[in-house]
């Protein structure tokens, strides 16, 4: 069966949703499922795996090649080859490109929800709850617990409409 999204890859993720009592079936390839945040990559790879698999088209390479932190002088290309960043500011300078590296290295996660300096409430509790539900959803799908997954998706949609 082909993936309903890209219509190219073989569908390996099969999701049955219960939306307002109606059954909906979706069939996606792994890549599209990850993109839609329905599943996460199964094993968080090492930072080198992530960086090596960070295939880039020529134009992107050219674009990223220009990225250089004005504070520490670290270029994205240099980071790619050594796996270590140069200073805190790199996280902002390399923003988009780095986000996708982090997402892969951190099993799909891109938002910190833990302790913060002085424990000031940087993240609002609703946001925190939403992120928690999203993660639980991914885990439920991974564990093929579709009943729980459907329930979590409903709760997420409810939050969205609120």
């Amino acid at each position, binding site marked *: 069966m082909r993936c309903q999204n890209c219509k190219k890859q073989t569908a390996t993720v099969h999701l049955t949703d219960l939306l307002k009592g109606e059954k909906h079936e979706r069939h996606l390839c792994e890549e599209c499922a990850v993109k839609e945040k329905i599943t996460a990559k199964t094993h*968080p790879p090492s930072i080198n795996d992530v960086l090596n698999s960070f295939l880039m088209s020529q134009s992107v390479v050219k674009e990223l090649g220009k990225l250089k932190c004005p504070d520490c002088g670290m270029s994205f290309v240099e980071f790619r080859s050594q796996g270590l960043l140069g200073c805190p500011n790199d996280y902002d300078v390399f923003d988009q490109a780095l986000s996708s590296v982090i997402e892969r290295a951190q*099993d799909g996660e891109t938002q910190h929800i833990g*302790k913060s300096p002085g424990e000031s409430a940087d993240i609002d509790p609703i946001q925190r709850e939403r992120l928690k539900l999203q*993660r639980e959803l991914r885990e439920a799908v991974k564990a093929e617990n579709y009943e729980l997954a459907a329930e979590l998706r409903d709760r997420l949609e409810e939050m969205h409409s609120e």
Partner: protein
Amino acid sequence: MTLDDLINSCGEWLAVGGQFSDVVISSRIRLARNLKKYPFLSKASTKQQTEIEHKLFDAITSCNFGKNAFYVDINKSDSLDRQLLVERHLISKQHAEGQGSRGVMISGNETLALMINEEDHLRIQVLRRGMNLDDAWSEINQVDTILESAVDFAYHKQFGYLTACPTNVGTGLRVSVMLHLPALRFTNEIEKVFRAAKDMKLAVRGLYGEGTDAIGDFFQVSNQTTLGQTEEEILSSFKAVVIPSIVKYEQEARQVLIKEKPAAVDDKVWRALGMLENARAISSEEVLFLLSHLRMGVVLERVKHIDLSVINELFIATQSAHLQKRYGKKLDGEERSIARADYIRDRLGRAKPSDN
């Protein structure tokens, strides 16, 4: 306290006891932190690296982590002292082999270590014997909060605590639980544990952490991701699911072995004891294998005259740097093997039941 005092003790965290102590040797938590206004170490100048060390040293000293705490300037230490600290799990191999200004503050009972200028500016580590993550977290969280009042750590609204390597970003939290799994290894079921661990996003490593092999049935289980979960969530999966289930697996495998193959178990255990009591030259790797078997025998009460504390002490005391410190001189490989065998015979001889 100084470094030389260390060799006569074995660190509070290696004492016997704690939850699941038949299987869990120790629990460790570490936090990675960096100073806000400085580059990470790959881009820090020699001068900046020294400034970072001074700044953190002052902050740590002002926070007063106990009167027996002591600081070791790793940059000025000789290789033997650095290796001694690695053997005691107080610094990492990377820290020992690094360059430039760096050091470690160690609490008197060795349960708290603050490494300055490892991969990140600061790595805080708390160790506990057996399974005791609650206690470890409560201490390390407190230390981190206190330090935060003295210095500003690099923090990002989206990515949390910023680290040199993006694999540590977010909480900067790494939990490692050291396990002794001889029965699962013996029954060839250890692969199952590895697979289950992988499914739960956990890494299984050897005795000395990243890049080391598992020797003598000792394994470290740790979390691989640090972002997107709260510290409590990361810890609770270890406490509620991961560790109890591995412990149960191992305990059951031990019981099955005892029931079905008592002679095979006893053979392994008593052979190990025989070798340890009689060898005249022995490598550290062989000692780990033999101590692993002997430990299983002691825990399962097949060997009753040796205390678990003696075994824990031997784990530490028979390592290369410890032996050389004890003998007060550099020993080559062959001399170390002989010194190691001598030390073990002497220590086990003292543990023997007396004749009267």
